[in-house]
């Protein structure tokens, strides 16, 4: 089980230390870890699980903060990693973002949270809803309240009801004047297009996100028009398994607030919303680049925030690139970034220019991979459609809202 958790800043400074068991872990392990990270180039390149001479270390890096956990015994690796991810999620939820200052300003809350999330090295409560009842988040409302009432404690007087209830994700009996429930389909399209323009791989990873503000114990059912297209699904613990098995219906009592109801994958899609056609030809120490971007299939929705990024090969001395739409920037680490935004009606966006190679090189042998970003509001590209959302014993006033959004995930075009 985990013996100690450290929070390190992006310069390797220990911001927080939480010993969990009787076996104290000395801080010097952080020095070892930091040297290791530096020797690897940067923390993203080193493995999430490392064996140091004395301990096994789990590391998760979020927004420049390293969450480091140490253990000396064999344990399920995902338990360590998943827990650290949960810690970072909860902290950023509580503190409204993660950075060095916000953690240093609120370290007492961080200690309090860790105290409830893990005891003796074994994870306990990581449900944000429950934690919020035990330890009030440091928001403006509670600050105002404390000024008004003179009670400055951020700990609630009562123990959360849910620790005793058999629905661990839901606080007991919230009350709302307006009953609202919102369902969002958020999809990410992963695609690989090879240098011949063939779609090698194209799939969608999607999530159903629900934001629920419903009084009492609401029992919801959500059904899809075409559930058969889903390849593999994962559910929030609140989803009942049997109705899904037999009728592909999601039946659940939702947690209060925002949560991820389900995630799914849709494989083997046949087309992408946009095309990217890079052409590189090189001779005599120069390489001519020409990239075209356009809409392939019109979904009737506008495609927003189109971007294109690629890493210039290290053997390139200089680059002169211009575009007819949007802006082109070459960043310090030789990353070229072209932001197009929306595609104009009258012309096809194109990027062109020349790259100058190192003096000994005649032709280019290493070809860049173009990473594409885009966002389409109002459509789920997997084709998944919500049929209906029902609430057993519906309250008098209930507002239901649905939205969909697709954006590019790992969308790569090779040249």
């Amino acid at each position: 089980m985990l013996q100690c958790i450290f929070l390190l800043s992006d310069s390797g400074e220990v911001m927080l230390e939480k010993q969990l068991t009787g076996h104290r872990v000395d801080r010097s392990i952080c020095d070892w870890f930091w040297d290791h990270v530096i020797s690897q180039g940067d923390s993203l390149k080193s493995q999430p699980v490392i064996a140091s001479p004395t301990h096994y270390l789990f590391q998760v890096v979020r927004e420049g903060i390293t969450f480091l956990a140490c253990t000396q015994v064999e344990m399920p690796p995902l338990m360590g990693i998943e827990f650290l991810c949960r810690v970072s999620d909860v902290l950023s939820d509580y503190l409204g973002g993660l950075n060095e200052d916000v953690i240093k300003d609120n370290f007492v809350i961080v200690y309090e949270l860790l105290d409830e999330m893990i005891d003796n090295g074994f994870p306990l409560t990581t449900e944000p809803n429950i934690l919020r009842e035990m330890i009030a988040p440091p928001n403006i409302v509670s600050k105002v309240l404390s000024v008004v009432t003179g009670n400055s404690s951020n700990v609630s007087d009562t123990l959360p009801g849910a620790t005793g209830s058999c629905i661990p994700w839901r606080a007991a009996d919230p009350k709302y004047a307006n009953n609202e429930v919102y369902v969002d389909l958020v999809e990410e399209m992963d695609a690989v297009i090879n240098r011949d323009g063939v779609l090698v791989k194209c799939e969608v990873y999607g999530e159903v996100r629900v934001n629920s503000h419903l009084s009492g114990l609401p029992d919801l059912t959500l059904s899809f028009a075409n559930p058969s297209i889903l390849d593999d699904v994962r559910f929030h613990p609140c989803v009942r398994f049997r109705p899904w098995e037999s009728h592909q219906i999601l039946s659940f009592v939702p947690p209060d607030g925002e949560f991820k109801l389900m995630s799914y994958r849709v494989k083997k899609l046949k087309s992408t919303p946009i095309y990217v056609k890079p052409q590189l030809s090189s001779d005599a120490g120069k390489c001519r680049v020409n990239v075209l971007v356009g809409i392939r299939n019109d979904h009737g929705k506008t495609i927003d925030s189109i971007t294109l990024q690629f890493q210039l090969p290290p053997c390139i001395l200089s680059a002169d690139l211009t575009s007819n739409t949007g802006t082109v920037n070459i960043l310090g680490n030789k990353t070229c970034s072209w932001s197009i935004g929306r595609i104009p009606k009258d012309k096809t966006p194109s990027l062109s220019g020349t790259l100058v190679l190192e003096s000994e090189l005649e032709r280019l042998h290493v070809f860049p991979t173009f990473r594409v970003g885009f966002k389409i509001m109002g459509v789920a590209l997997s084709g998944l459609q919500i049929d209906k959302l029902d609430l057993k014993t519906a309250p008098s006033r209930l507002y239901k809202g649905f939205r969909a959004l697709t954006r590019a995930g790992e969308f790569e075009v090779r040249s």
Partner: protein
Amino acid sequence: MAPPAQSQRSQSPSQPSGKSEVSDLKLQLRQLAGSRAPGVDDSKRELFKKVISYMTIGIDVSSLFGEMVMCSTTSDIVLKKMCYLYVGNYAKVNPDLALLTINFLQRDCHDQDPMIRGLALRSLCSLRVANLVEYLVGPLGSGLKDSNSYVRMVAVIGVLKLYHISASTCVDADFPSTLKHLMLNDSDTQVVANCLSSLQEIWSAEASTSEEASREREALISKPVIYYLLNRIKEFSEWAQCLVLELVTKYVPSESSEIFDIMNLLEDRLQHANGAVVLATVKVFLQLTLSMTDVHQQVYERIKAPLLTLVSSGSPEQSYAVLSHLHLLVMRAPYVFSSDYKHFYCQYNEPSYVKRLKLEMLTAVANESNTYEIVTELCEYAANVDIPIARESIRAVGKIALQQYDVNAIVDRLLQFLEMEKDYVTAEALVLVKDLLRKYPQWSHDCIAVVGNISSKNVQEPKAKAALIWMLGEYSQDMQDAPYILESLVENWDEEHSAEVRLHLLTAVMKCFFKRPPETQSALGAALAAGVADFHQDVHDRALFYYRILRYNVSVAERVVNPPKQAVSVFADTQSSEIKDRIFDEFNSLSVLYQKPSYMFTDKEHRGPLEFADELGNLSIGEAADNVVSSQRVEENDKDLLLTTAEKEETRAGHSQQASFGIDDLLGLGMPAVPNVPSPPQLKLNTKAALDPSTFQQKWRQLPIALSQELSLSPQAVAALTAPQALLRHMQSHSIHCIASGGQSPNFKFFFFAQKYEESSNYLVECIINTSSGKAQVKVKADDQSTSQAFSTLFESALSKFGTP
């Protein structure tokens, strides 16, 4: 910013330097301690915050202990929490002052607010000061009976903490049986889960000394308990579910219908949002069906989709951990995943450790139907910016070629690599073409045409250069200018730094000489002269050997150097299947990520700090022995070339004697030759015992561990254990037979069995030996538990005689 450890010494200007601030705080705290003025809590809170923040950045504020305790009388819960945190951190170094805190903590344990009761109890148990345990028993006892589940949950973990401070106090207060009662009856599942984890730890620790505890530990994995937990599994928190699932993997169902019941019950856990739960479930499924081949295959099919989704949906850290497990499964059953190969395509942004795993998996799943696409994909990576990955992917192409699918297309690709004019690509491709030719000599014509065009000046890496030279020698009859290239290489003999390349060069020139004598003669002369004058022993020896054998008889030399070759059918695998199985048994653990079974990397951790010192002593002896043996081997290999078998036997015997003398000298401590051999007890074993592996496996799974102990090996035994076979023969002479063995120095693993004389009662032994520490971990299982102690003594005495003449 200074790294953490230095922050104590060299402070950056914005940070307080420590001393004066601490004494300042001390003064302020003292002023507040007795004050009852309104608003005092707020000023206390500011001060406490400052103290904690100093503590966090590593300034020693333990001198404030007394003042902090004085200020702790408050009703403000945040103040209390900060105070608990402070006290927990420094109580261990201030055991005397810690006594001061007992009073207020005990009082808080009776507070009206269950939250305060819980927090106080948690802090009380976290003090970890041995002479304060007497104050723990009372509050813990009432905590376990508390009406609020939060307090009970804290108290249960408190019992475990108490156990680690003072095991006897915990057992005397009869807490384990209270926990057992709570586990089976409490309404709150978190309390149940905490009881389970505490009991597992307590009883495992107690099991070595107490019969009852080991029975209790076995009872945890009995049918009633397992079923009770499984039926409530959906009520548990996700982490507690992992704990329960881990326990279930140890359960051995009595009949196959049970297996299906359990799997049906757990099936929806595969769709849980928490990856740890999914992996724990996968482990249950795999373990339960190990003995049922058909179902096991179906399980692979069933778990495939959830695992692949986990890989693509989680954060990079999570997907790496899942991918490592997937890697293990793919290596075991590649055919199951052969249609999912696209999931193993590398993304540009992925870190290289992920790409490397994926490349290995792509190699493994290649078969007739997908080879073409996989190889096409791999070839794209060869132009990758990440050079190590580009190399790795070329090697992958080569490995797939050696798996015999669609060789035709692959050879074309490899030859294209050779023309890519990137030196690392050329280098990797050359090595591959060499391996390919060793397996498929029929391709020599196509390959040689391309290889002949490569200028040896463009090849710098020793491995690639050696491969090129090997091909020049082997196919010199087909390559027009082979003798001249070799000649120019010989001319630059002194500039060649790698001994491997020079060795290959010698052999290649020899081969070339037999095929095209007139053109090569001068090069051969130059090479032999340079070789004999070489400072590297191996190169020198080989040159001398070639020279002498040529003088003796040229046709004999040709038979030796250039015999007709058989194509290699299978290249040796690097990781033994025994190790792979072992890793598989440890599914869902760190072993999978390190790709090593845990006994290869954790053994040091299980020992206390005290044993470390003598382990170090043994370590040096072990190393010395290893060195002696390995150098002896090298010499042997050299002599193999020259001596007849009879002579060889003699030198070998001489060497091993020398080796053991060497060790005796090294020790020079006057150690007794055989350290305290226990006299063999009255248990007779059947000398001709027989047991087939499947029965062994079955029994091993079913029987409980009767005995588990750690034995020390004599230095002689360590020295003699260079290969598993040595110990096998020795144990056989004591009627203890080996059923499976494996490992390499310093880690060996054996499974032994023995049978009682004229009875069919079996003893099974797992023995893990680490020669660098000189320790053997022995686990004994027996049909007849009552004689297991006698057998263990017999085993120990047999083991202790190992290595003595």
